[in-house]
């Protein structure tokens, strides 16, 4: 048993691991941590002379206004896809923090297909979008498959490799867009050519939010099917319990981890596709404002449950939109959004601790 640590001197604080975490406790803790995070952000807003209630009402306004909700939905899609990818990686205890880079590789691949079509006319119109989806999945998948393979084969720390590869991917996209992929008619701006209509995800329903939501739901269903109903999903969970256990169970570790990594990165790669082909309509440098990192918060808040990813990522998409609006109306710095997200993140993590452990404070004096 794990217990007994003195934190505050005059009282003795005992921390015990809970044997069972009830659903009620779990939901209650999550909600109270969210409320606390909003409270602390409120203090910061008050410090710069704003009424926190005003700020909150703008934030709530994002979810009640149909036009703004659509914007929140748009942003929720790359976040949600990346988070789904993470749900697979985290399930096998593979700490993929490279969703950001995998998204950049997805953007690279989908733009590459568009350029192959536009510059060399190699691909017929009707195949472009389909190939973009495939290419972004494969490229993102390989970008995560490599660290997964290294982890499985040689036990190379995946936290560091995936993190480092984010930057490699980002600079690679920078290189392309400032160099060979720059639009020749773009007055020197670092932008690719605008994607033709049939290369955009908007072609299905007009509004990207709808087609994107469809894509996200398909991905959720896929993730659920893979995790619950396939042999691979089962093996992923066993690997997550511990590599040694999995080895005893006769699971081919290298194959499972690599495949899991490819799936994880592939879905994040689709998130990259959603950014260039859905939200922006072309490639530009630093196209993702950290969606890949937000995805980590999303998947933790969803407790690795793919279904919960949809509402939670809409919530976070809304925070991004609210940030833009607050910046424009109340002149709140853009960094406030990041701070707000970070506070939610920190409080959720602390909430995890409160869920897992029971804290009792006894009033006896310990030396």
């Amino acid at each position, binding site marked *: 048993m794990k217990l007994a*640590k003195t934190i505050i001197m005059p009282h003795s604080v005992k921390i015990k691991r809970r044997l069972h975490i009830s659903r009620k406790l779990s939901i209650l803790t999550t909600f109270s941590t969210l409320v606390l995070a909003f409270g602390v952000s409120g203090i910061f807003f008050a410090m710069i*002379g704003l009424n926190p209630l005003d700020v909150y009402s703008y934030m709530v306004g994002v979810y009640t206004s149909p036009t703004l909700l659509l914007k929140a939905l748009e942003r929720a899609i790359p976040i949600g896809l990346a988070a789904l990818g993470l749900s697979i990686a985290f399930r096998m205890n593979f700490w993929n923090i490279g969703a950001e880079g995998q998204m950049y590789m997805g953007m690279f691949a989908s733009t590459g297909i568009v350029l192959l079509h536009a510059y060399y006319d190699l691909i017929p119109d009707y195949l472009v979008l389909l190939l973009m989806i495939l290419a972004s999945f494969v490229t993102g998948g390989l970008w995560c498959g490599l660290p997964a393979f290294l982890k499985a084969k040689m036990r190379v720390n995946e*936290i*560091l490799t995936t993190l480092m*590869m984010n930057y490699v991917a980002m600079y690679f996209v920078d290189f392309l867009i400032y160099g060979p992929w720059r639009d020749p008619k773009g007055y020197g701006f670092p932008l690719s050519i605008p994607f033709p209509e049939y290369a955009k995800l908007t072609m299905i329903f007009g509004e990207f939010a709808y087609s994107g939501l469809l894509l996200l739901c398909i991905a959720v269903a896929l993730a659920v099917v893979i995790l619950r109903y396939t042999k691979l999903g089962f093996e992923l969970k066993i690997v997550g319990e511990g590599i040694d256990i999995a080895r005893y169970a006769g699971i081919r570790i290298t194959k499972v981890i690599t495949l899991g990594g490819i799936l994880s990165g592939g879905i994040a790669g689709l998130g990259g596709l959603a950014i260039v082909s859905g939200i922006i309509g072309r490639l530009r440098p630093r196209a993702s404002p950290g969606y890949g990192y937000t995805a980590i918060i999303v998947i933790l808040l969803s407790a690795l449950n793919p279904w919960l990813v949809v509402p939670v990522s809409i919530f976070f998409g809304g925070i991004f939109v609210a940030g833009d609006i607050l910046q424009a109306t109340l002149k709140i*710095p853009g960094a406030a959004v990041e701070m707000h997200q970070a506070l939610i993140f920190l409080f959720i*993590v602390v909430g995890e601790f409160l869920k897992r452990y029971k804290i009792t404070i006894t009033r006896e004096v310990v030396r």
Partner: protein
Amino acid sequence: MSIEWIEQVLQLTVQMGTVYLLASLGEIYAERSGVLNLGLEGMMLMGAATSFMFTLAYGHLSAILTSIIVGALMGLILSILVVDMKLNQVVVGLAMTMLGAGLSGFFTFPEVRKNLLLRLNPSLPEEVLLIQQAQKLPEIQIPLLSNIPVIGKMFFSHNLLVYFSFILSIAMWFILFKTRIGLTIRSVGENPSMADSLGVNVYMVRRMTVILSGVFASLAGAYFFIGFHPFWREGVTAGRGFIALALVILATWSPMRAILGAYLFGGVETFQYRLQLFGLGAQSPYFLAMLPYILTIMTLIIISTESIKKRIGAPASLGIPYAREE
């Protein structure tokens, strides 16, 4: 390419490298004791922001002191979360990075900064309140030595923090490998339960090293801002905290090797800008920018070999929270 050009590049290499060196020194200690501090970037940003505000308000000394305090506070928060609460180090570290980025951007936003500066020092003149730059730390030329051709400027023409970081890394190497304190730290990172049974307070050691890593990261941020690039913008350190994290791996957790690695990365970055100025290989800056990360991935692969891992003494319990079994 004149002699002056080479001298200048070498000098900048060391000055740039010092950012990485300072940040990595604390991180080496934290990782040697088994804690991965992924919050380095956020702590650097906090240090940079603090030094910016305090340089404007009260000058350089106050800036350095306050950034040390801020770093210690960030380190303390991180240590409570990962050492005492045993929360996942990756998640908490990333959260700290986001928090540092958010808070530093928030407090230095022009409107906010103006109010804060007035509260810090009401006698500040109006024009100081909204400027985006601060005064740079003065360079101290060591007489005679700094006149040596080619390498004189590289080693003997810097501000105090650069000299300090160089001496400090040698001292920290000595402490880590040649003293009892260092042995304790390394044993905690290698096998915490063994260290515990020998009477070492594992939690306390880890708390201290994590706070130390916060202090150094924040100091690195402060140095970067007032000692190297005193022009403020949001997220001014631009991911250098992660390069420092990479440097720790490249240096395989040794403060001595970190000196070489830091100047290597510093040189790579200096070249990135220089080549752009020359118009030489317009594409190359991006590939040069990737180099630290690629080198690190390769190092990670090489040191994953069991025999090499043993020889360099990679901390075996890195990233694993220690929970005492009773």
